[in-house]
Each structure stands twice: as structure tokens, then as C-alpha cells.
């Protein structure tokens, strides 16, 4: 590593949302690359037809300069950019030991209810995605969770029974990772 590479780099979380169209990721990441940034883990998805992405960005620049790097792309594509300074580490993944899928007729409070009882039973959620399926007059709420059950799987099973009594179907699948 030469002298110029020894400037302190820090991590930022860059969140970008806007109307979806092809090529957004390519243009954003090219601008960051040209501005000397490194990317860490990222998550992009479409929510309700909107483009959303969260990116770990490593840079020796201040957040205002990061904003400036992606500014032209954001302006051209009408994207909103939000940047936070974060503490971050790579290469320290927690392995999930359980996968839970849930669904039920959509109603207000369903996510709070489900995640509340799961948290009580010792589940640390590592990954969560949810969707509203069905039709406008009969919406179905679907959640997909990867987590780490601190207190083992049994405690979770009993709370899932409780959810079932309240009209939420749940399937719990233990994860055993093969290492070879």
C-alpha cells in the first residue's frame, strides 16, 4: 500500500429511491467507482414498483462529496439519495438457523404482531422481505424471514401456534448448513 492509499476510509450507508427504470444500478455504481469509492454489501429491490437500494460505500470523502459524486445521476433520473455515516464490518456474517414464512389476510398491524411475538420468543431477524399479494379487495400479506433463534427452535414453534389461532399461517424450517 502506498502513502496515498493510507488516508482513512470510512463506511457510509447510501440509500437511493425513485421511479424504477433499467440501468440505475449501473449508473450509480459507475459514478461511485469513478469517485474512488468501494462498495460493500448491497440490497436492491423494487417495492411497489419503486426502485430502492441500500449500499455500503467505503470512501475517504466526506458525505457531502459522496452526495456530489452521485448528484448528476440522481438529478438525471429523479432519484432521492440519503447518506449516513456508519460503523461497519465485513466478513462477520451471522448464519441463520431458521427460516420462517408466514401469510394471512392483510390487516393493519400484522407485521408488528408477527415480529413482536417472534422477538419475544428470542428470534433475531437477519433478513426479512414481505409482499402484498392477492387482489385489491382480498389482499394477502406474505412475509419471508431468515433469523437466528437465540433460544432454540421450540420456543418459536409455540408462538407460531398462537399466530395460527389469529389467522396467520406460518411454516418454520430449521436451517442446517452443509459445510464441505
Amino acid at each position, binding site marked *: 500500500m502506498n502513502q496515498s492509499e493510507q488516508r482513512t476510509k470510512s463506511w457510509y450507508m447510501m440509500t437511493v429511491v425513485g421511479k424504477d427504470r433499467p440501468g440505475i444500478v449501473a449508473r450509480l455504481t459507475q459514478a461511485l467507482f469513478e469517485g474512488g469509492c468501494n462498495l460493500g454489501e448491497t440490497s436492491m429491490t423494487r417495492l411497489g414498483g419503486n426502485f430502492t437500494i441500500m449500499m455500503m460505500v467505503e470512501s475517504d470523502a466526506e458525505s457531502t462529496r459522496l452526495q456530489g459524486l452521485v448528484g448528476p445521476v440522481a438529478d438525471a433520473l429523479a432519484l432521492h439519495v440519503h447518506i449516513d455515516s456508519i460503523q461497519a464490518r465485513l*466478513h*462477520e*456474517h451471522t*448464519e441463520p438457523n431458521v*427460516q420462517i*414464512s408466514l*401469510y394471512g389476510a392483510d390487516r393493519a398491524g400484522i407485521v408488528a404482531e408477527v415480529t413482536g411475538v417472534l422477538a419475544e420468543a428470542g428470534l433475531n431477524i437477519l433478513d426479512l*422481505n414481505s*409482499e402484498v*399479494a392477492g387482489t385489491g379487495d382480498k389482499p*394477502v400479506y*406474505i412475509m*419471508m424471514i*431468515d433469523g437466528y433463534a437465540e433460544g432454540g427452535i421450540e420456543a418459536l414453534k409455540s408462538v407460531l401456534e398462537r399466530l395460527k389461532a389469529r389467522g396467520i*399461517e406460518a*411454516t418454520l*424450517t*430449521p*436451517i*442446517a*448448513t*452443509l*459445510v*464441505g
Partner: protein
Amino acid sequence: MAVLEVVSYPDERLKRVSDPVVQFDEALQSFVADLEQTMRASPGAVGIAAPQVGRLQRIVIVDVSSVINRNRTKEQQNSSSNGCMILINPEIARAEGRVVGREGCLSVPDFTGNVARAAAISLTAFDPAGRRHEYRCKGFEARAVQHEADHLDGLLFLDRLVSPRELFRRKIYRSI
């Protein structure tokens, strides 16, 4: 015996096709002993393939017996157990069914992902003395054999990842 150094991606040897073993001699037996010791020294490992220690020969070891006794998942409950299988020049003759499960790899640290594998396989392989055997494997053991056999063709589980979101979605929509 010795614990060998496990190579990790992007070491190019992991992407190469290994050669069949032609000499079933003492050198082979000594290497197999080292390979097994290397597997046992790696926490949680249920298999290992020769290219993972940089040797491009068609040799794998699979032993799921320590794991399937825990019976945590359906795939483990349904698993066969042939004990410690030393598989030289393995050929998977038949494969049936398709199951998605989570895999990691000694040669790919800090990442695991979902991979679809055949639920049951039958295979032939030679032992270190050059005798030919037939095996039937299912469940977790079948997954382990397929994962290790892939190494002999330069394939990692990273070559076979499936999107958990898509699979989950299909599974749920089927049950609604």
C-alpha cells in the same frame, strides 16, 4: 498424517477439472489419510474434495454421521448414512428429486447460500485399494456427495445458487 492447507477461491485450481486416479498405491492411501485428517480438523465439515487442498485428482471424502444424528432438518432426518465414504473416481449414475438446502464451503469463507440438489442419488466409486463400490445416498448425505463431486469438475456451490426469495415465493403461493 498431516492437516493440509485448504485453498480458497479465487485460487484457480478450484475452477479446474480434476484427473481420474489411475494408481491405487501407497502414495494415494497416504494422501487420502491426510485429506481425511484435514476434513476432521475443519469445524463442521462433512466432506472435502482433493482440489480443495490443491490436488487435482478425483478424490472426495464424505462423512455426515456426526451431523445427521442431530436430526435438525427434514433433509437430515431423511438422510442415509454410509459412514465415512472415501470416493475415488466417483460417478453419479442416477439422480432423483430436487431439494433446496443451505450450503457453505471450506473454500468460500463467510458466505452460505441456497442450492438445489437431487434428493437421492446412486453412485459408483473406487476405494483407496482400487475396489469398486456402489452406494445409494439420500437427503443430507446425497447433498454432501453432490457438493464434493462438483469440486472435481471445477464447480463451487456459488455456481448453483438459487434465489431464496423466488423459491420462498413459489412455495408460499403454492400453499395459498
